[in-house]
């Protein structure tokens, strides 16, 4: 049985959440109405900046041509594939970097370099090696994802509680046992948190890859729209991308909550 204070607190909490949601929705509505009006009365150039009504028409046309879900699915598919590959690779590298401290010390400056390098600069090389196809997109996305995730997970491993490490030493645990019983389980939160980073990075990689080589996907829609000066298509692609990235992020967040509960 809840006390009156608790009931009051929950009521206030829910009300506050509703108000925040309402303001957020209002911002979106005001943004689209302002955009539409500015475009309609030629205050902004509607050829360059399009308008919500034109965007809706473009997306509807894509739907009628059976292209809308095809492009969305290609981007999601490539993102999920590169995210999964990136996660497995970064876990393996992080484990090796933890098990072999010397290897970590040698690799540390290279990882920092690679982490700060804009991976899209490697695009042309990747295309030459992997070909102008989906493989290049996946490689690019994996590269972007794997470096960041490896740095995050490895740092998590090396931040394992020193007292617990001492306890494992007192049990005379070997390094594989330390990894299995202590380091990986205690870095569980860090690993799961790296999912969020990984999915965002994978999406960036996929879109960069689609810009360069693809014939399908939201990145392709955006770059194609630019090439043929169809800026309604460009902005439609960008808006669809915002929605997709938000949904993917929320999905991973949900997964994170489920796995950590």
């Amino acid at each position: 049985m809840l006390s009156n204070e608790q009931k009051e607190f929950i009521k206030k909490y829910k009300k506050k959440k509703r108000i925040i949601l309402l303001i957020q929705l209002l911002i979106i509505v005001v943004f689209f109405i302002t955009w539409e009006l500015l475009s309609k009365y030629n205050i902004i150039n509607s050829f360059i900046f399009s308008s919500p009504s034109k965007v809706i028409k473009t997306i509807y046309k894509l739907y009628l041509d059976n292209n809308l879900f095809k492009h969305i699915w290609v981007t999601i598919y490539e993102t999920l594939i590169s995210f999964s590959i990136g996660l497995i690779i970064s876990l393996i590298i992080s484990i090796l970097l933890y098990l072999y401290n010397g290897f970590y010390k040698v690799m540390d400056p290279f990882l920092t370099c690679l982490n700060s390098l804009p991976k899209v600069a490697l695009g042309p090389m990747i295309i030459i090696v992997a070909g102008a196809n989906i493989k290049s997109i996946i490689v690019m996305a994996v590269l972007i994802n794997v470096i960041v995730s490896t740095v995050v997970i490895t740092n998590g491993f090396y931040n394992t509680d020193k007292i617990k490490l001492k306890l494992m030493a007192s049990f005379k645990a070997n390094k594989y046992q330390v990894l299995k019983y202590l380091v990986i389980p205690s870095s569980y939160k860090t690993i799961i948190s790296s999912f969020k980073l990984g999915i965002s990075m994978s999406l960036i990689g996929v879109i960069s890859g689609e810009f360069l080589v693809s014939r399908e996907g939201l990145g392709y829609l955006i770059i194609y729209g630019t090439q043929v000066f169809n800026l309604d298509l460009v902005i439609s692609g960008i808006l669809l991308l915002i929605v997709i990235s938000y949904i993917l992020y929320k999905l991973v967040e949900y997964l994170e909550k489920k796995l950590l509960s």
Partner: protein
Amino acid sequence: MSKILQVIKIGKKYNTINGEIEAIKDISFDINEGEFVAIVGTSGCGKSTLLSIISGLLKQSKGEVKYNIDNPVIGYMLQEDALFEHLKIKDNVLLGLKIQNKLNKETKNFALNLLKKYNLEKFIDKKPSELSGGMKQRVALIRTLAINPDILFLDEPFSALDSSTSLLVSDDVYKMIKESGKTTIMVTHDIASAISMADKVIVLSKSPSVVKNIHEINFENKDIPTINRQNEKFHYYYELIWKDLDDALE
């Protein structure tokens, strides 16, 4: 009582890029079987380093630690309970046995019976966060006792607890250790804990440390630590050790 280990002229230097740091200069003492020995000293004097060396977790720069048993099994209890949150209490207690490949029906029953004996049976399927600080320290000691060590090492075991919990837990830990009959070495900065629990208190000087003094604690009707603290001789020992530590700082 027979000697279980001898610490002979132990020294420890750390080599860093900025030079050599001498943590322990020259320490010697003997530990008898079944004895409860406390090592006290000021912060940073090298108490924990010494404990790590005696227990074999750290290599000394000079000297020798001589055990009078072959391949002694050591049990370590640390500043914090160090229980693994992803494991249930039961699995935490069995962890050492599992790592040392000693987990069988007999050892498992022994460990679980310890939980039962110390009224923690109903928590075996709980996670550590569901237990109080005092309970967690008891579980930590049971985890250490489960591997049936020849010698117990306690490294500031109550320092993470608040003062009232610390007093209660020290009573529980003391009883558990005495019932197990294990030889115990405890390092602490808390003189009162040392006197109320130990049979012998070794006082270290400031770093690089040497043995400043060794006091045999002889209470008539020795009891649990909270009762020992009320013993008339408690203050006598307290003054003696306080003076040693005071001199050590000069």
